[in-house]
């Protein structure tokens, strides 16, 4: 198996607060292969965005990485010096944020922001940077790019701004793009276009994508594999088709049951009872046990680890413990 582009091992992110330390990510492990699109799903507060922020080294204090390792193409990046990490941001890992209306500095033209980013990472002349910037804008689908490049962000509509944001994230040709809810703030009519643009350009350049979203529809269409987060822990990870069609973790099963599909003839969508626990009240054992329909005694005591399953899947659930032993044997 080739070396993955990104490898996250047992990542722990903690927030020290007055009332004790909150563990927002608890031993999260996953890989992203070269050119792969990994979907990251979960409810709000499950830790999706934190995972992205931890990888790119932009956790908001007092949040900090308290354990685990992050490797980028064989190089460990979670403990890099600030300046070295800065050179990786934008150059090797790009990031697209949720809200295009607030992601761009209102006081600089698109050209200024693009050339600044390009010239930070690549040694080119101002003129060359501008040429690249125009090509990039053209590529992300901004009409009349050579003219509009000198406009300020407020001259663009929301969808157009998100295209500019994508251009900015890709300006220095990163190997990995973390897209944190890139379409949530957008009008439904342009969401698909934005996702397409992002996916196409990344495919063109061979860049991998970590797509953070709570929209399973987007994941189904875009991602190669999907990782499901629950209360800061990975519930399940595997090829997107398998996970959607035959989810194994009861949480994922519930999650899939809540998505309307055209083929499904169900009268009503199922809903998982209860709510995700707050970080200061995560139950012992499996974090999902109070809401789980198939809960066992063991789930309330021991925490299940992420374990390999056939077909390149991994699940953290005691239901598959014996099955796994059988498969091994």
């Amino acid at each position: 198996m080739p070396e993955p582009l990104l490898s996250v091992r047992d990542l722990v992110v903690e927030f020290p607060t007055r009332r004790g330390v909150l563990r927002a990510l608890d031993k999260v492990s996953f890989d992203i292969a070269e050119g792969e699109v990994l979907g990251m799903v979960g409810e709000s507060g499950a830790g999706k965005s934190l995972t992205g922020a931890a990888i790119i080294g932009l956790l908001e204090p007092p949040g900090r990485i308290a354990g685990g390792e992050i490797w980028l193409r064989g190089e460990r990046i979670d403990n890099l010096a600030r300046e070295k990490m800065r050179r990786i941001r934008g150059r090797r890992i790009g990031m697209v944020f949720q809200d295009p209306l607030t992601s761009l500095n209102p006081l600089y033209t698109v050209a200024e922001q693009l050339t600044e980013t390009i010239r930070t990472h690549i040694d080119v002349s101002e003129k060359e940077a501008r040429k690249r910037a125009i090509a990039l804008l053209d590529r992300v689908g901004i009409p009349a790019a050579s003219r509009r490049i000198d406009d300020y962000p407020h001259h663009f509509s929301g969808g157009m701004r998100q295209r500019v944001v994508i251009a900015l994230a890709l300006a220095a040709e990163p190997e990995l793009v973390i897209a944190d809810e890139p379409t949530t703030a957008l009008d439904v009519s342009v969401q698909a276009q934005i996702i397409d643009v992002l996916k196409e350009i990344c495919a063109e350049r061979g860049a991998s994508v970590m797509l953070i979203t709570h929209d399973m529809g987007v994941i189904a269409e875009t991602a190669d594999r999907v990782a499901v987060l629950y209360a800061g822990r990975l519930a399940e990870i595997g090829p997107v088709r398998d996970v959607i069609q035959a989810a194994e973790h009861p949480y994922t099963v519930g999650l899939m049951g809540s998505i309307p599909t055209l083929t499904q003839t169900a009268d009503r969508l199922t809903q998982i009872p209860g709510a995700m626990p707050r970080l200061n009240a995560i139950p012992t054992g499996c974090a999902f046990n109070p809401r789980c329909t198939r809960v066992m005694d063991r789930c309330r005591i021991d925490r299940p680890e992420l374990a390999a399953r056939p077909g390149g899947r991994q699940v953290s659930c005691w239901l598959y413990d014996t099955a796994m032993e059988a498969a091994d044997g």
Partner: protein
Amino acid sequence: MIAFILRRLVQSVIVMLTVALVAFSLFRFVGDPIASMVGQETTLAERAELREALGLNDPFIVQFWSFVARAATGDFGISYRLQQPVMELILSRLPATLELALVSGILAFLFGVGFGVYTALRRGNWLSGSIMTISLIGVSLPTFLIGVLLIWVFAVELQWLPSFGRGDTVYIGDWWRTGLLTESGRASLILPAITLGLYQMTLIMRLVRAEMLEVLRTDYIKFARARGLSNRAVHFGHALKNTLVPVITITGLQMGSIIAFSIITETVFQWPGVGALFIRSVQFVDVPVMAAYLMLIALVFVVINLVVDLLYYAVDPRLRVDRANARH
């Protein structure tokens, strides 16, 4: 753009007319202008004659109009106390006040922005902690007390700097007497400028700090960091520029306050400016000088407001609406 400036100009004229009305009412109703002008031995008939000659029997609106017309040409009459044309008095003292206000304003802005940025970027370190604490005392200290204490320490005890006056001055052109070109003039300026600028500096500093912290939390700063821009570029290119937009307004308005507060500083340091002249006029109910000073301050405020608006316009592209509406 032109429409914007025109609208502002009209507003400014309205403000000036309102202030003129107040100033004129001062003239007309505070004390008796005739009694202030003539001696004890003037007869009642002579007084009535003078009253008629000065137009004091005309309808209010006529009198007001002629007041405005004269004020527009800089004619505010004769000071009751000094028996000199008011405008002459004010013009001879204006350079002193403007030089003091300008230097304090620049000091306040530079140090205010500098300290504000520093304390915002280095939160929790001991130096920014102490700067914040001292600034709290600075806000609570009355301006005149700062001046008196500075005189005590630097002029009386250490004898480094002069305690009053402008030092030597030289003329630039016909009437502008400057202290900036002589050594003693510059030395004399230091303590008053610090006194006058300190309060404004703490205000600007606290504002810059608060705004900067606010801006540093925004998405576009996060995005700038995520693109790997250097700390320098993020802090000074992106964060500071956005911080300065609201700061410009406040600083502009503070410039007006600086001129007003110069009354206090000029009294403490016996600085021969218009503020000290105004205080004297209040003590002696010298109405023409009070009225003229009022108009002068109003003019300064109006001009500063205009300049601030234009600066705002230059810094923030979102305000340049004309282009924005055409697109989308």
